[in-house]
């Protein structure tokens, strides 16, 4: 069933408004008519008209322009089409200046009106879809979606509320999987920028040159394959927030570029000569100890201080074990319904296993573990048996020939082995290793493992 858009036709001549209304009704619209501005505004009180056709010349009382200006106050979302008998550039310009979307000179060709109406309504449909989607997204990332009763986390949530409306740069620190992006989104979607884009970039996943063009965009021909001008994430985030994940992994050159953007909110596209200026809030995140990186000379101290205007440190899951039952319950509900499984909860014994586990991969690991248990479980409740593999892994249960090599070499070998088993699929390998995908990329780079 197509949505019936209400349309209003305002003209002092009844034959004009009624014949126009009849013509539009044949097209399936709900059409009302009004003989003057007052009547139009009265009708607009109870109906949110998608389009108002208003005749420019109406004797006595309000003329078309006045009616339009009042209408825009009462119904700012209505599109106004001014109807005039003679085309004079002046009236047209005035009408458009006061906010008319279009004007038509009567009589006009039926095709002209029909195309005009369908074009305006197509736009309205997109706009209303957009509003619905934005609402959906912001619902998804409100503060109350971060589940916690831990006092430190509560404090962090309070802080995100307070700083949501500022433009200050925020640095979020925390181990992999603690929910750094979730906190960044919570800040974005609670503030004045909520209706503008939130753009997320994982700095660890890309090589230096790719990341540079990803962030700043590039001009046509600036490198092989750059066959058109492309906007970077900074430009895409204009007016909104850019989230730079794994900021501790960027190269010295990019550190310098980023410093300049933070200082001046201006930059050049790769291969470009024109400066681009943006209004962007920067939220950066890292699982590295940045002060340590600064001391070691791997991270610019001036950039660190620029980023570290407001610092949020998210505690690892093992330091907020009281949240494990809450989170587990939440994940069971969500994942079971997503997978269409009839699982209602977790037994006390199973919960004890989860609480005792150390969770090096934090909340994300907990989520993955529960997903795995739900997939393999055949009961209505998750039992301790569903998590037995977790305790075995904890104890390192199976005998395993460990050669006398540095720990890092063991890690390297483990990664290669898992990657081979997963046929090079980084996402699956990361899941199996219980680490974040970007952490895995980081380690691949560090150990120089081709994938």
């Amino acid at each position, binding site marked *: 069933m*197509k949505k019936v858009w209400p349309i209003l036709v305002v003209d002092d*001549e009844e*034959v*004009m408004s*009624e*014949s*126009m209304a*009849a*013509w539009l*009704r*044949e*097209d*399936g619209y709900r059409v009302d008519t009004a003989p003057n501005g007052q009547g139009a505004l009265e009708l607009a009180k109870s109906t949110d008209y998608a389009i108002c056709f208003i005749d420019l010349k109406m004797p006595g009382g309000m003329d078309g322009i006045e009616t339009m200006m009042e209408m825009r106050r009462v119904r700012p979302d209505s599109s106004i089409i001014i*109807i005039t008998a003679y085309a004079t550039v002046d009236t047209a310009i005035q009408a458009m200046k006061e906010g008319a979307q279009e004007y*038509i000179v*009567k*009589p*006009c*060709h*039926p*095709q002209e*009106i*029909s195309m005009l109406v369908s074009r305006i309504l197509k736009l309205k449909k997109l706009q209303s879809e957009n509003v619905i989607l934005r609402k959906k997204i912001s619902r998804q990332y409100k503060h109350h979606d971060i589940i916690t009763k831990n006092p430190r986390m509560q404090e962090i949530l309070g802080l995100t509320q307070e700083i949501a409306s500022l433009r200050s740069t925020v640095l979020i620190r925390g181990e992999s999987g603690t929910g750094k992006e979730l906190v960044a989104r919570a800040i974005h979607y609670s503030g004045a920028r909520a209706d503008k884009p939130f753009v997320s970039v994982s700095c660890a996943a890309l090589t230096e040159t790719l990341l540079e063009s990803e962030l700043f965009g590039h001009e046509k021909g600036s490198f092989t394959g750059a066959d058109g001008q492309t906007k970077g994430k900074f430009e895409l985030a204009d007016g909104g927030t850019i989230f730079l994940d794994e900021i501790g992994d960027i190269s010295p050159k990019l550190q310098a570029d980023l410093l300049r953007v933070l200082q001046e909110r201006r930059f050049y596209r790769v291969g470009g000569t024109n400066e681009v200026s943006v209004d962007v809030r920067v939220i950066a995140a890292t699982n590295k100890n940045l002060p340590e990186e600064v001391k070691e000379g791997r991270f610019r101290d001036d950039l660190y201080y620029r980023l570290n205007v407001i610092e949020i440190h998210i505690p690892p899951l093992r330091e907020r074990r009281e949240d494990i039952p809450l989170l587990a319950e939440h994940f069971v509900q969500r994942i079971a319904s997503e997978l269409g499984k009839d699982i209602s909860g977790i037994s006390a014994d199973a919960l004890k296993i989860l609480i005792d586990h150390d969770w090096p991969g934090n909340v994300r690991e907990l989520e993955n573990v529960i997903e795995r248990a739900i997939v393999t479980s055949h009961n209505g409740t998750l039992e301790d048996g569903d998590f037995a593999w977790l305790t075995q892994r904890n104890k390192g249960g199976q005998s395993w020939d460990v050669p006398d090599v540095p720990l890092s070499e063991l890690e390297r070998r483990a990664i290669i082995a898992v990657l081979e088993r997963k046929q090079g699929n980084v996402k699956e390998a990361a899941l199996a290793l219980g680490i974040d995908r970007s952490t895995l990329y980081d380690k691949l780079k560090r150990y120089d493992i081709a994938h």
Partner: protein
Amino acid sequence: MNAVYLVAIGSVANPVLDWVEATIAEWCPWPVWRVPPLAFPPDSFDMKRGQYKSVDIMKAVARCAPPEATRILGVTEGDLAIPTLTFVFGQAQLDGAVAVVSLARLRQEFYGLPADENVLRERLVKEVLHELGHTFGLTHCAEPKCVMSLATHIGLVDSKELRYCGHCGAHLVHRFTTPDGEKS
């Protein structure tokens, strides 16, 4: 009893009225009755535009309808227009009793081409079905081949087919078989 009345406004050739009558008889189960032709009502001609005021013609057609007419269709050679539009091929009361169809812009001669009776007949039949469809509550159909699709120029009249789409056809059958007061 339900019936469709047919009336000419001004002079309309008899064979043309025969085509219209045959079309209605083919698509609508109700009997078709002709009433004597009407003269164009005074003042219905807009001197400035050289066209007839469609609204005035509709009113005249409505006035001449016998009380038992559930539908009345006017056919005219006059070129019809409404104040905001340069022309209309026809007009109908949505879910009402009255419809009119103009032959003027259905003729090849209007576009500077030699007269063609077959073309005229096909266009007229499509317009009759279209306007009558409106009186049975059908609005414009999104299916471009359906006779109920919106035609804003003669090319679109020609490109639709001489049939209702399944959806519009089903609506009509429902309306033919239920008492006129009960709308779906």
